């Protein structure tokens, strides 16, 4: 009797403490959850704006519905196709070039024998990633300014004709790749370097005994070791391939009109439609299109990875 009673007491107090625990959890998670609700979930419901003729005087709910008219305007405008192409194309270039250079520089540091040298290079090369795109824009301007910029001075020194950088759109895909690498490799390679440091040295010793050369090491030890990290980073990157780095495309190019054929991306388009033209309909249509395609892309990528090897999937 007594034993049973005690047992019941215990379970009920356990039950009570579980409730208390969960109240604590709720309390702990509340601020972050509430902030997300206000600044992520409520704006999600705002996507209805894309289907409305938004008028400031009538607000989100008072404005009349117009169906897909805003999308029609967006897709009919000459810029829609160009911005989509630029976004996907440039992001693809940026992702691939970063991946290759990040790993290459991580390997370079890994193979260096002097600890001091590694530290020095890493400390210096990471500096650009501490800069905002605004400041990078200033630096790039000092280099590329058509009259008086350093690059054109070098070109004229060697007898070439100076280039009008800010009105030559077809030079910018390469320039943006270089600028993006300049800013990002020092930092981006750290992830891979950290991962490389985790390789057990025994592997190399065994491999050396088997007569493996550097190439074999790379192919059979190092790359397989880096693979999970590469895949996770690429899923994230591909999921965001429809979202361009606004600062890079807007500020580093100085929003120069003549460069739009290659540098106008969805994000700069939305900014222009919203802030310069005040055209809320068109900008929200473009924005919703971007969000939906981005969502589908990240789900699709993850699904494909899951099919190939479930361990590598993000979720």
């Amino acid at each position, binding site marked *: 009797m007594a034993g049973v009673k005690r047992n019941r007491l215990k379970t009920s107090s356990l039950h009570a403490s*579980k409730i208390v625990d969960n109240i604590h*959890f709720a309390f*702990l998670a509340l601020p972050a959850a509430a902030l997300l609700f206000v600044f*992520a979930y409520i704006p999600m419901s705002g996507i209805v704006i894309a289907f409305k003729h938004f008028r400031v005087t009538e607000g989100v709910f008072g404005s009349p519905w117009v169906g897909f008219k805003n999308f029609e305007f967006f897709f009919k405008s000459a810029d829609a196709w160009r911005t989509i192409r630029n976004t996907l194309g440039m992001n693809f270039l940026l992702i691939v070039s970063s991946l290759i250079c990040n790993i290459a520089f991580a390997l370079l540091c890994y193979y*260096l024998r002097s600890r001091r040298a590694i530290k020095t*290079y890493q400390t210096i090369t990471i500096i650009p990633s501490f800069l905002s795109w605004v400041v990078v824009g200033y*630096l790039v301007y000092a280099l590329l300014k058509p009259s*008086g910029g350093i690059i054109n001075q070098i070109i004229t020194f060697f007898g070439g004709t100076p280039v009008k950088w800010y009105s030559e759109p077809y030079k910018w895909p390469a320039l943006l790749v270089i600028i993006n690498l300049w800013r990002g490799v020092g930092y981006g390679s750290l992830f891979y370097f950290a991962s490389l440091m985790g390789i057990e040295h025994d592997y190399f010793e065994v491999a050396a005994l088997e007569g493996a050369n550097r190439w074999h090491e790379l192919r059979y030890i190092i790359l397989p070791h880096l693979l999970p990290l590469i895949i*996770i980073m690429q899923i994230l990157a591909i999921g965001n391939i429809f979202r361009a780095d606004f600062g890079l495309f807007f500020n580093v190019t100085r929003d120069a009109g003549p460069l739009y054929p290659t540098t106008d991306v969805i994000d700069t388009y939305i900014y222009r439609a919203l802030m310069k033209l005040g055209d809320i309909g068109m900008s929200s249509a473009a924005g919703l299109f971007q969000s939906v395609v981005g969502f589908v892309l990240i789900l699709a990528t993850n699904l494909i990875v899951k099919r190939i090897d479930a361990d590598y999937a993000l*979720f």
Partner: protein
Amino acid sequence: MMVKKKRPQILLNGIGIVYSLLCIIPFVIVVSASLSRPIDLSQAGYKLIPSPLSLNAYETVFRNPAVIGRSYAVTIFVTVVTVFFGLLFMSMAAYTLSRRNCAFRGALSFYFFFTMLFSGGIVPSYIWITQYLKLQDTYRVMIIPSLINVFYVFMIRTFFQQLPSDIFESAKIDGASEAVIFFRIALPLSKPVLATVAFFTAMGKWNDWTTGLYYLNDARLYPLQYLLYSIQRNIQALLAAMDFTTSGMGAIPIEDVPGENLLMAMAVIATGPMLVVFPLFQKHFVSGLTVGAIKG
């Protein structure tokens, strides 16, 4: 044998040195430009070493340091407040997400994670923040909307999950509540990941200029990076704000009116200190990075 092994090392070091130089040279050019006369910049162009040397730009800035001083104050205030509350709220949520005995853990994870997959985009946020919350032109708009970064929440959660579980269990047996465990045990043990997140949050805030682009009209609230952006668009506003008025009766010699050199000087003043401070933290966050897998 030795010779053979040395050559690749020289090559590697060569690449490292060249790359490092490429990272630094643009700064040297900007510093040099800030020390030049505007007339030389437009006639002779940018140089690695300024000639003739001129302190004109810095004199202009420091004759009326209020503009840049105010911007520094805004940026520091916003960064400190964001880091403190962001870290607090993110780690609180991360703790809940890390505990297996939390009844709504799965749902909450999904609730957080979904915001990484889908967003309403800038337009609805913009209308919501400006028309309904009326946050434009406040300090709040620079702080509150960006307090929670879900990526960092999962980063901290992963760290909590990797802490030895017996510590938590023994604390539970001693009767500690979850809140107490979080504040007394989990937080103090998580300094590496917290330092990393704090560092990235601070850097993000320090470099944020788009908030200003969308939400700030009042020049007194401009943080550093947005100030830099806006003077690049129109330096006249800055000259006027610095009392570089032309209300005296005599004409001012052309060499004395600052131009691009002032832009470059502002860039140097706005970034210089951070380039000294940030690398000091580098040691900490490199170790923090490795804990950052976010598999959900």
